[in-house]
């Protein structure tokens, strides 16, 4: 039996986390509210998360996407490692990185499997749309294969 929600596109579920040790959660909290206001369900993990924690959350919450907040120079190591940890767990879930990422790092990150990068200037609409697009293209990719 269908409920009234099933006529709408299924609600996206997004895990939001910050890896490693840098300690600001302002940005990630703002993103959480943006995504909620865009109608998504945010599983908020917050600060100091490990890859394992994120993988656990994605599995148990059956998340559609992951948002990683990055505000120090470690994105070049942390984000690709996150992508690899997901692949190893067999999880086909896009990783969107938000934060301050220098231009020259963008291409290498995308090459390493990060789905998209959002700079600090992104509007609320851009943030939400980037997540939706990342989910859509991951689905297109996996249904072809």
């Amino acid at each position, binding site marked *: *039996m*269908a*409920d*009234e*929600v*099933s006529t709408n596109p*299924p*609600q996206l579920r997004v895990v939001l986390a910050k890896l490693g040790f840098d300690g600001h959660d302002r940005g990630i909290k703002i993103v*959480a*509210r943006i*995504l*909620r*206001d*865009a*109608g*998504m*369900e*945010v*599983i*908020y*993990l*917050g600060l100091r998360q490990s890859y*394992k*924690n994120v993988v*656990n*959350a*994605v*599995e*148990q*919450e*059956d998340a559609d996407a992951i948002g990683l907040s990055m505000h120090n120079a470690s994105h070049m190591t942390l984000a690709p490692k996150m992508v690899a940890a997901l692949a190893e*767990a*067999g*999880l*086909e879930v896009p990783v969107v990185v938000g934060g301050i990422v220098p231009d020259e790092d963008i291409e290498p990150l995308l090459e390493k499997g990060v789905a998209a990068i959002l700079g600090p200037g992104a509007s609320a609409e851009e943030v939400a749309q980037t997540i939706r697009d990342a989910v859509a293209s991951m689905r297109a990719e*996996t249904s072809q*294969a």
Partner: protein
Amino acid sequence: MSLRGLSPADIFERALAGERHALGRLITFVERDAAEAEIVAEMAHTRAGNAHVIGITGSPGSGKSTLTGQLVKLLGEAGKRAAVLAVDPSSPLTGGAILGDRVRMEDVASPDTFIRSMATRGHQGGLSLAVPGVVRLLDATGYDPIVIETVGVGQVEVDIAGTADTTVVVATPGMGDSVQANKAGLLELADLFVVNKADRPGASDVRRDLELMLDLSHLSGHDQRTGMRPEIVMTTALSGEGAPEMWDAIERHFTTIADNGQLTERRINRDVAEVRNRLMADLESRIDVMLTGNSLSGVAEVLDAVAGRSLSPTAAATQLAARISDL
């Protein structure tokens, strides 16, 4: 492993084998009330019925998640495979939600604990369908006990917690919580009270208030109905103090109702309530189709007659009731 291209039955097999993403996906089916949900429910029901289901409810911010985290930590240490279903309200405006219970539990919970966050998704009727479905899946895949966290504000959330084998109501000092609990009907529901934030001033006052209210409800027949007077346990969830005592009290309650036959009765009632909720939802959607669509001949005429004041709404409902089964 990837779940790509697997049938619901395959995914169910994987979940039985302990693959957590498979279980996560099954829960999504149930949550969306997708076509797969019915198949899954069938497979789960024959295997379920073993787990001790614990409801934890109380005011926003009373420490339910922190407390649940401490509880599942203990359970993990005792070698149990516990699961948590944490329900939070969706924003009525956008349908979105920030589900923040998990972060409070994850630090302490053992890695074997399965934690699922769930939003109410605006349709409360749906919640009373989805929660038992998810609990059944967790039960069928070997999780025991299962803890359901809901905020004790809406009637449905309260009902959900109340369908557990053991319902824990969390109160805290300084919020007039015990009075609130009384208003929301939580007092009637509680098998066990926890006064959390016992590190704060006023905790013993809350305890005293609760004792008084229980004395009164004793007079009004509470104890006769439930078979036992709810215990009151003091906890400080932040440090974990009192959590072992809380678990002991939960187990004592479970043993008592298992011995006095009430457990069986509660579970039968729970199943009947679920069938009832399903039927209600089904009827409701049929009625909506009947009244808003043109799928049944003659309905429009009846409604026109009501609008034209030649037929009363009562008489119209009587006529239309006979036709619900045609849909």
